[in-house]
Every structure is written in structure tokens, then in C-alpha cells.
């Protein structure tokens, strides 16, 4: 399988009031195309820092990150912005969108900015198809304050997919949603993964992690262990029990 993300000896250190805080310590990991990887761990373990560092949202202190074989750790700000625009998508816990734009316009924005050889007509049609797929086509022209949290997060997913990225990063994608909306969003993410979208997500929610193909457990800036969720583990309850057992072993 081809590598979607390759991370080697990744370190991230913050210096606050002259005190060093090593948040990530020589993290190594590889995510293959079509995988859906969850990162779990206690609060302050470095999950989100890892996600931001490997996705190019933040610059690591040391180490190497290759996104679809392209080294992104040394890229200039301008080139990094291009990577964020075209090669990956990001879903945040809070549904950050521009207030003066409708749902559809918020989704279209990165695509219009990227251009990428597609005509505006094609982009619009692709956007509508995405919205239909995620069940929000009826609120396309609504203001961002006129839809529910679940709909807004699905709009954020649409936005992250509008430029057909190679990998999707998600930071607690269901963290701000209620149980029912959370399940809907995860169902959509699963469907997308089944269609071939590679994903790496950070979560506290066992139910969310149980839907992934692999789970990484991070403690004090190091990957302490990882769990493969085999295909045979298809039963949802069974997968959750397996994950629960493993997490207890890890010290969850």
C-alpha cells in the first residue's frame, strides 16, 4: 500500500517563560492510503499537537513529515498554504466558518481560491454533489447561524473535501455535537473512508475511534501503542469491546 503520511522523529517543544515543554518526543508513524487512523490519549498527551504538526498547520521543532511522499516540514509559508489548499482537508472541533457567507459559499471558497483546472461550473456541481451526499443540500443557501451543529460540521466536512484532498485530518470532529449528530457525522466519515479517503483523527470518544481501522494511543508525547481493527471485527459492539479492553491495558 502507498504511504499517505510518513512521520519520522517528530518533536515539538514549546518554551514558556524560559521553561521547555517537550510536547512531542521523536514520534514515528506511517499512515497508508485508505486508512482511517484514530489518535487517542489522555488530556495534554500531545494528540492535537501531533495532528497540527503532521498536517502542516503548525511547524514541528524537529523531525520529518512526508505527505503523499512530499516533504512538508521545510516548505515556505506560501507553499505550505498551497499544500493545505489542495493536498489535504481539515475538520475542526469548532465549526469555524465565515459569517458573511452562506453554507454553500463557505464550502466553495477554497475551491474558488485553488482553481486547479476545474471550471466554476464543475466546482459548483461537485459542491452540490458533496452536499447531497452529506445530506445538507437543502440548507445550501442558509446562513451559518440558521443550521444545526451537525449540519454545520457536515458543511465543514464538505469544505475539507471540496478540493479532493489526498488525506483528511480531523480534530475531535464530533466533540461539539450531541450524540445523534455525532453518529451521523461519523457515519458520513466512514462512508468517505470506504470510498477511499485517507483519514487521521483525534478523538476522546471510544465509539468514534471504534469505527477506525487503526487506533494510536499517545502518552506524554510518545506513541505508546497501536491497535489494528481487523476486518473481521465488523460487529460494532465487538469492535468497541476490543478497543475498550485495549485502552484499559494502555492505562486509559
Amino acid at each position: 500500500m502507498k504511504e499517505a503520511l510518513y512521520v519520522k522523529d517528530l518533536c515539538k517543544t514549546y518554551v514558556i517563560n524560559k521553561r521547555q515543554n517537550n510536547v512531542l518526543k521523536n514520534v514515528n508513524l506511517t499512515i497508508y492510503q485508505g486508512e482511517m487512523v484514530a489518535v487517542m490519549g489522555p488530556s495534554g498527551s500531545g494528540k492535537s499537537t501531533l495532528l497540527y504538526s503532521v498536517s502542516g498547520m503548525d511547524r514541528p521543532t524537529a523531525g520529518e513529515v512526508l505527505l503523499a511522499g512530499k516533504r512538508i516540514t521545510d516548505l515556505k509559508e506560501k507553499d505550505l498554504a498551497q499544500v493545505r489548499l489542495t493536498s489535504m482537508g481539515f475538520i475542526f472541533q469548532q465549526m469555524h466558518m465565515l459569517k458573511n457567507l452562506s453554507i454553500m459559499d463557505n464550502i466553495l471558497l477554497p475551491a474558488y481560491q485553488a482553481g486547479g483546472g476545474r471550471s466554476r461550473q464543475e466546482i459548483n456541481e461537485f459542491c452540490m454533489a458533496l452536499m447531497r451526499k452529506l445530506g445538507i443540500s437543502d440548507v445550501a443557501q442558509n446562513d451559518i447561524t440558521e443550521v444545526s451543529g451537525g449540519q454545520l460540521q457536515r458543511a465543514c466536512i464538505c469544505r475539507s473535501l471540496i478540493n479532493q484532498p489526498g488525506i483528511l485530518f480531523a480534530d475531535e470532529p464530533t466533540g461539539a455535537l450531541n450524540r445523534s449528530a455525532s453518529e451521523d457525522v461519523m457515519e458520513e466519515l466512514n462512508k468517505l473512508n470506504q470510498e477511499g479517503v485517507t483519514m487521521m483523527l483525534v478523538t476522546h470518544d471510544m465509539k468514534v475511534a471504534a469505527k477506525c481501522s487503526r487506533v494510536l494511543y499517545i502518552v506524554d508525547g510518545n506513541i505508546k501503542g497501536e491497535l489494528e481493527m481487523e476486518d473481521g471485527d465488523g460487529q460494532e459492539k465487538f469492535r468497541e469491546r476490543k478497543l475498550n479492553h485495549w485502552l484499559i491495558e494502555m492505562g486509559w
Partner: protein
Amino acid sequence: MYFRILRKDLKRKKSIHLILLAFIFLSTMFIAGSLNNFAVILNGVENFMDQSGLGDFLIVTLGGSKEELSENDKDIEEFLKDQEQEINYTVDDQLFFTENQLKTEDGEKVVLGGTSILNSFDIRQQKFYDKENREITHMEDGMIYVSQKLADKNYLTAGDKLRIQCENGYEKEFEVAGELKDAFLGSDQMGVKRCVLSSGDFEELLMESGLPYGRMYSVVCKDAEAFQTAYSNCDFSELFSGSRDLVKTTYVMEMVIAAVILLVSICLIAISVIMLRFTIVFTINEDFKEIGIMKAIGIQDSSIRKLYIAKYFVLALAGAMGGFAASIPFSKGLLLQVTEKIVMEEGGGNVLFHLLVSVLIVGVIVAFGYWSTGKIRKFSPMDAIRSGNNGERFRKKGILQLKGSRRKATTFLACNDVISELRKYMVLLVTSMIGVWLVVMPVNTINTLSSEKIGAWFGLTECDFFLVDEEKVAKLIAQGTKQGWYDYLEESKERLQKDGIEVERASTEVYFKLRVRKGEKFYKSFAIQGLGTSADQYFYDEGQPPIYDNEIAMTHIVAEKIGAGLGDTVYITSGGEEKPYLLTALYQSMNNMGEGIRFVEQAELDYSEGTGGFGTQIMLKREADREQLSDVIKRAEKLFPRVQVKTTKEFISNMIGDIAGRIEPLKLLILAVVIAINVFVVVLMQKMFLIRERGEIGMLKSIGFSNGALIGWQIKRIMLVLFLGIVLGTLTGAPFSEITSGRVFQMMGAEKIEFVINPLEIYAVYPASLFCITVLACAITMRRVKTVSVQEMNHIV
């Protein structure tokens, strides 16, 4: 504890508080400085006249001597004694001199631009002041104070030596003591300039110099209008007669500058008020998060409000104190141009006024803060945490749609932001619009005053240059014959032609002060007769040019004064004889404050009543000469070494004062002020937006917008608003000029002025400079976008 919160808050949100502080500082400076100027300028000329003790009606005569008064002066004094209403009057002696009689140390002629007057410093009718506004109460023998105009024209400063050389051989040297502020003859419109001497020196000159003698009467009465009517009814000869109100109108130059400063002040006040409101509302909205948190943990509304009001009080006090200190030199600087000739309360002198305005601004800011924080009572902690907007109830979706738009994403975002939240950009829109007005107005005024049409507006015929020989004119006036004038014109023409300069026409206008009557209404008006020219060569607004010797044209102002209309018969007294004339045309003139009666060349007038003459106007025959006018003028200067050779513009500028020349530096100053204000507003606005939009910028960065694209988005917004403001300002600039400086031209006597607009300047150069410099400043400020990180999207509102 509250004090600690306040101190920490002030430290933590340093940028936003510094911006608010800067706006309060600027607003206080502008408002206090401008309001003070407003008060000072509005009554400036009137106060100066009061302070100088100028009478209600003034008469200047020429003729006779101290020992033997002219019949005219005897008659005037008789008239004054016989007045029905109770009057007081004073009479002072004066001597007249021309530029051939006043020389510098090097023997160079002092440029006067007209006949001038010598007086003793202690005349009874008015007080004189020096440059520093001190009353001149004592003068040493051998000293001379010169009028500000004269000092300016000849670069004279205190300590310079001047020599009076008279035709009878009398000579005396004087040392310049300084510049003179003179309420009666100080304005540019008054062609006559004055110098004052010690009483001993003046007496000596009176006895020995042989300079022409004259008298100056100053009448104090209750009803100046009735006195003027009575005076006009008599057939006295004088160089000047007019009420104090008329003298006041001659300060039109100062009024132009004062009007410009008033306008700038009004605009600055408007900009300040808008800026202040914008900044306070913005900063209070920023504070809603904190307010919400405090409410959420149970702190009462009143305590929260006290805390914020205390903060605004501290900021307002600091800003206003700085603004108060800066407003004094600012106000002084603005008034510098106006105070050149007028004794005014100093711009920065009224400290109490500045202080009062500054205190008022602190009060307004605190009251505004109190009112704005009052809103927090209506909100729940959640509403407040969301900066006073809970979205569902208040937020409005953008107007434009990206879907289907052909614009670039950043261009779309810029347009959508501006259209959806125009109020947010109103400060810049209004500032740039007012800025364009302020720039366009003086430019249009200067272009109009410098245009070819200016001669027509001053009631002159078209010509290529003027020969101005004041001494000759004085002699011709004394000679008192029409033929004398013709001989002079012919002589000038011949001398030019001998030198190979082909002359089409040599003409002049001789002026008189004549009584005109229609029915019971009469008026003593300035009147002219063109010699060497026909009446149809002048411009008229209504009617047909006068052709026969019993036909006249008059200005709208004189016609209105006596209630005459086209086709009416009016009666004019010349040489003691009242004759009927048919009014065939009306015209406008900015000469003599719009007064004027025009006779045809063949009309018979008593030339012994002539009071002066314009220069000889030369119209060239050959196009080639006209194309090389500067060469021709140089040749004419060699031919007439004692004569001043001037173009029409120079002649008029000499006559009324160089308005265009004096507005020119103001134009550049205003342009600089406007650009500085625009740049300042843009920089501060962008800094505020950057503070508020860090979340959005972070989010856009997270989805792949580069720094360049984000800077482009921010700049395009500003460009759009600036463009709108400048276009609106340019479109409304011409009517604004007509309302503002058009009024000044009307004060000078013009009925209707067609402004000369230079499209390149008005529609391209100035708007483009304003636009480009402001956008450049915005681009430099927006480099700060680079400092926003993706993580800051969590600050999104």
C-alpha cells in the same frame, strides 16, 4: 480587586487601547483646535476693527495742503458739522507717495503696486498694531512701520533702511521698525498701502517734502446707512468713501482663507466624531467576551459597568490631556495665514476654551461608554460571550453569492465584506469623501482665479499685457482731461510699434466715483469709461451692450441698490450736472466689491472727477508676438523702464491680492493633511480589524489561503471603500466648490462664477495620489497578517 482587573485589562489589550487612545487624542486635538478657530475667525475682522477704534464711515480725500485746505475738504467738513443725526468725527492729515519716491538702501524702487499713504503713528481715528499684535504707542524719530503687504512684496524686515526721495529734492532715511497691522487699509483688496512714522518725522515731511496732501475723515454715528445716503447725495470728490461694513468686505482674502480653515475644521470635527464613535463601539464589542464571563460568574451588571466606565474614563482622560496639549499649537498653526494682517485672539491663546472642549470630550466618551455598556443588561451571559450577537436573532447573511461569481475568491470576499457591513467602513468612506472635497475646493478656486476668464470677471477687455505707470496716472488725473489720456495711449502705442511690436489696440479704463439715481433711490458708485475700446468688447450677463452716449451698463449690485432694471432711465451726476442714461445691459464684476457703471467711450464725463485708471491694456496684432509673449514683455520692460509690465493675471493679482498664490500653499497643506488623516484612519482601522479578524484569518489560513491572498483580501476591501469614497467625493466636489468658494466670489461681487475644472488634476492626479498613498499604507499595515497563526482561529467570533 476591580482596580487590578482594570490594570491587567489595560495591559493585556494594549493594541486596542492604544488605538482608542490615539483616536481620543486626535479627536480632542481636532475638535478643541477647530472649535477655537471657529470662534476666533467668526468675529475676527469685526473684533480687529473694534479694537482699532475704526469709525462707522470713512472718507479719504486728495488735494490742498495743511495750510490751505481744498474747497472739497472745506465742503466735507461743513457737511459733517451740519449733520442732523448726532455724529462724532476725527480728521487726520496724510501724505501720498508712489514707488518712485521710496527706495531701498541700494537705491532700488520699493514695489508698492499703487499709491500709498504716509501717516503719523498717533492719528486719532485708529490704532495701529505691530506683527506681534502689540499696539504701537511710541515711535522714535527715523523709524518707519510698513504695511504687511509692502514688507512681503519687498522682503523688508526690521532694521532695513528705506529712503524717501521727493521731487523737490527733499530726502530722508528711515529704519524699518516692523510690519504694520492696519484695520482700514490692511486688506489686499485695498490697493492703497500705508506706512507710519513718528509724529515729528511726519510733521517734517508735511512741511518739507512737497508730497501730495490729503485728509482722512472717520465718522462715528448711530445710523451709518442714513449718513451714507446723505453723503451720497452730495457731490464731493474723494478717493474713497464707504462704511465700516464696506471696509470689512475688503477682507475677502482673509475670509477666503478663514473659510478654507473653517471648512477644514468642520470636516475634521465630522471625521473625529465618526472616528470616536466607531472606535468606542468597536472596543466595547470586543469587551463583550469579558463582560459575559464576569456575568457568568455572578458579578452584577452595575459593577461591570463601573469597571468599564472607569477604564474609558482613564483612557479618555489620558487621550484628552494629550489632545488638549497638542490642540494649542495645532490651532495656532491653522490660524497663522489669517493672522498675518488681522489682530486676532491667538489660535492657541484661549487655553480655557481648549480645556473646556477637552473636558467635554472626556464627558462625551464616558457618557458614550455608559450608554454602550448599558446594553449588557439585555443580554444573557451567553449572548455577551458571543460579543453581543447570538447570531440567530441579529446576524445578517452576506448580500453577494460566491456561487456563480466570476471574481477571484479574495475579490469576492472583499466585495461581500464591504457590501454586507458597509457601516463598518463608513469612517473611511466619509473620510475619503470629505478629503476629496477639501482638496478639490482650493484647486478649483486656484484654477478659476488663474484662468483666462479672470479678466472678464474683473470687467476688463481681453488684452495681452498691461503697462502700469502709477505716476503717469496720477498726473493724468491731476490734469483732468480726456485728451490727456488719449495722448498717453497713443504715445505708448507708438513707442511699442517703433520697436517692432505691432499693436492692435492700446486701451484703458478711467474710473470715477459718481452719484447714480433712480427715482428717490441714489448711490455713489464706482464708474468706468473705457478709452480706446468700445463697450461691446466687454462681457455682459443680460441685455445689449451700450452704444450711444446716453446708454450705460451697470453691475447687478448697483442696479439692485437703486432698484433699476434693463430699459430703465437712471440719472448720473458728473461735473455737477445730472443727466439721464438708459440702462441697456447688466454685468458682473469682482472689482470694487461688485460695484460698477460702464459708459461708452464717447459719453461726456468730467475728467477732473476722475479718481484713477487701470493700466494701459495692450492687444497685439501679430500671432507670432502673442506666441512669444514673455519676449515681448521683456522688450516692453526695456522700452518703459519706469513702468510695470504685467500680464492680466499679474495685474489682477496685484489689484486684489494674490489669492491664488496664497491658497496654493494651503492646497498643498490640505492635501498633506487629508492624506495623513486617510492614512491614519486606514492604519488604525486595519489594526482594529486585524485584532477582531484574527480568528477568521487563522481559519482561512487553515483551509489553504496564503499570506499573500489574505493581504490581497484586506487590501481589496480598503481599495473598494476608498474608491467609492473618492468617486463620491469627486462627483460631489464641484457642487461643494460652488457652495463654498462660490460664496466668496459672490462676496467679491460676482453674480455667478463658472468654475474652471482641470479634469486631469481633479479627476486623476489628486484622487489617484490620495488612493495610492492610502493603499500603500494599508499594504504596509497588512503585512501583520503574517503574524496570525492557524491556531488563532479558535478566537473566531
